[in-house]
């Protein structure tokens, strides 16, 4: 066969182009398979089976001050997932509102629809599960901590040191839904108790709330519950002027706050 040098080079160039550029186009147009469900699902546009959301009624939350206890959602989270101080997956903070008011604000992972942490992960260790929950596969994570940088809610943490697994977890089979025992050098975050909700149980923080201030719901079926009552989800959001934290960032958080006593609605609380 008689191939000139020029045409050979052109051929090689075209092959190179097709292997580098074409996949990029695929990924930019949202067809990236790895972005969803850890590479097991085919298309990011496939309909989610569920869309778990949390609703936090700020009128009901008093940080468990009235009960003389630490916030029980934090306590539940800590006992199930062995969180240490400063790395609670849900945080409850007393913040100042308008007119000298103070109120308690639980800040969990927002499981954003447009999650910055999912976007920046270089290896797809962070992904959206079929229920819209953002999970971390600690077996894949390289520990670059880019997700910690990306999260505008500071709800991303890192296993800095080797931790002894508790006797119970030592034999637990690892899964991103129940990511125990902890793996040194990887990132971690709230899993919205995927392993519980699969079995029809409420997430630990919601079950743990003695005030019934937190609701767990599904946008697809439009119901929510705090373990005490079942409510129509969208109606509740509309009637109570629900807002989302830092909505202006465009992250589309899946946590709704119901304001009620002097919150700066839809805006950041003053520290």
């Amino acid at each position, binding site marked *: 066969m008689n191939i000139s040098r020029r045409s050979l080079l052109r051929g090689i160039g075209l092959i190179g182009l097709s292997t580098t550029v074409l*996949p*990029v186009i695929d*990924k*930019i147009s949202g067809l*990236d398979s*790895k*972005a969803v469900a850890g*590479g097991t699902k085919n298309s990011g546009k496939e309909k989610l089976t569920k869309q778990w959301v949390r609703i936090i009624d700020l009128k009901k939350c008093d940080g468990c001050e009235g009960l003389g206890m630490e916030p029980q959602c*934090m306590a539940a989270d800590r006992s199930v997932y062995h969180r240490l*101080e*400063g*790395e*609670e997956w849900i*945080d*409850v*903070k007393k*913040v100042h509102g308008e007119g000298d008011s103070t109120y308690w*604000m639980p*800040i969990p992972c927002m499981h954003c629809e447009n999650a*910055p942490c999912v*976007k*920046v*992960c*270089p*290896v*797809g*260790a962070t992904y959206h599960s079929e229920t819209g929950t953002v999970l971390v596969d600690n077996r*894949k*994570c*390289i*520990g*670059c*901590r*880019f997700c*910690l*940088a*990306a*999260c*505008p*809610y*500071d*709800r991303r*943490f*890192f*296993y*800095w*040191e*080797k931790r002894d697994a508790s006797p119970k977890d030592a034999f637990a089979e690892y899964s991103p839904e129940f990511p125990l025992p902890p793996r*040194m*050098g*990887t*990132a971690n975050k709230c899993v919205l108790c995927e392993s519980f909700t699969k079995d029809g149980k409420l997430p630990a923080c919601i079950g743990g709330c003695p005030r019934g201030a937190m609701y767990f719901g599904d946008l697809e079926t439009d119901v929510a519950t705090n373990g005490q009552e079942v409510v129509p989800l969208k109606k509740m959001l509309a009637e109570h002027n629900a807002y989302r934290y830092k909505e202006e*960032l465009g992250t589309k958080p899946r946590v709704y706050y119901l304001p009620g006593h002097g919150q700066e609605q839809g805006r*950041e*609380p003053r*520290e």
Partner: protein
Amino acid sequence: MSNNERSLELEEIALKPLVKPGLGYNIGLASLAVVVAVGVLFYAGQLWKGLSVTGMQNQVFWGLYITTFVYFIGISLAGTLVSAILRLSGQHWQSPVSRIAEVITGSALIGALLMVVIDMGRPERLLNIFIHGRIQSPLLWDVIAVNTYLFGSLLYLYIPMIPDLALCRDKLGESVSPIRQKIYRLLALGWQNTPEQKERLEKVIGIMSVVIIPAGIAVHSVTAWIFGMTLRSGWDTTILAPYFVVSAFFSGVAMVIVAMAIFRKAFGLEKYLTVDHFKKLGWLLIAMGLVYGYFNFAELLTEAYKVKGHELEFLSMFFTGRFSMLFWLFFLDCILLPVFLMVWPTTRNITGITIAGVLVVIGVWFKRYIFVIPTLSLANTPTYFDSAPYRASLPELSITMIGLAGFALLIALFFRFFPAIPVWEIANEWDKESAEISSINSVRLGKFKGGAK
């Protein structure tokens, strides 16, 4: 002195350190090696105990490693500026410096990659980046850009060195070990200094100097975007990429000046690296410094005027707060003093310019530090737990020194085996010059002849 004699003298000076380096050089090499070795020991500890041996925690989760990574990325633009941009703009004075600049680029990029791997929680999963890589992550852009630039820079270092490798092959002979002779022979690719080979070489260098520029700019932009793609005060700004490119030029030129001063003394290259080189690079340095200062001003003013969101809290850390010392010192140390040293004729000499270079080389590292740490120190949400402010730990410092000392070590080792100044290029310049002079003379003579008629 005829061109031939000059060339012979040049060859002798350039090749001398390859055979028998001075005592000071060996001591320097050994002490750098010790620093690296200590760091490696600490790194073993980090591998065993995790990143908890550093001062980093969940609030400030990037520390000295990423600071140094950004620093190295900045330094690495030196080669592109000196040997590509200046070459394309038709300058000839920079050719003795070009190899030093190119080696700085290569070593800085290797240092940058090293710092990233050191910073990883799971370095053994490095290959995941290629197996599971996702192109929408700016980190992946960086991996692609840095590796492309590193490969291009090494090529751009190697190709113009081929005639000098042939020189090593022909001139060093028995004075070096047989293995080295073999390596020189292999690397010289059968260079015989024929006009055809020379023409081809010039062509390839010309192409490479164009190709390497976008690669260099890309590396700095993409590194800026690692930070710029987040939603954090101080990073979330569109100016970041050009700002990184300018600061990279700035620190790169400074590093070239410092390296030039060191190798000039160490290898006795006073004849070839003259005060003229220092002055020209010095002007370039302060030009870049002023643009960098301007970018800083433009960015700070637009933020400080509006004090949007967390901005007030953020800016007060710089103007009056915890980082104000480093912040104000930076402008003194990296902009005002170098400008003064260059503008005042008394200090506009090799010593003065070298001091300016050293000030910038050190100052820019601290500037990187106050680029990374303050932004992370600021919590995005009111948090229940107030973590202690970041303080680098001793192991972290020592591990960082692997990068910094390793960078110097790489450069020093390189010039133990390869000539620091491009003998061939300098001789070529001389030939061109004398050809020009003789052609001018012949033109003049021709005029005389014409006039005499």
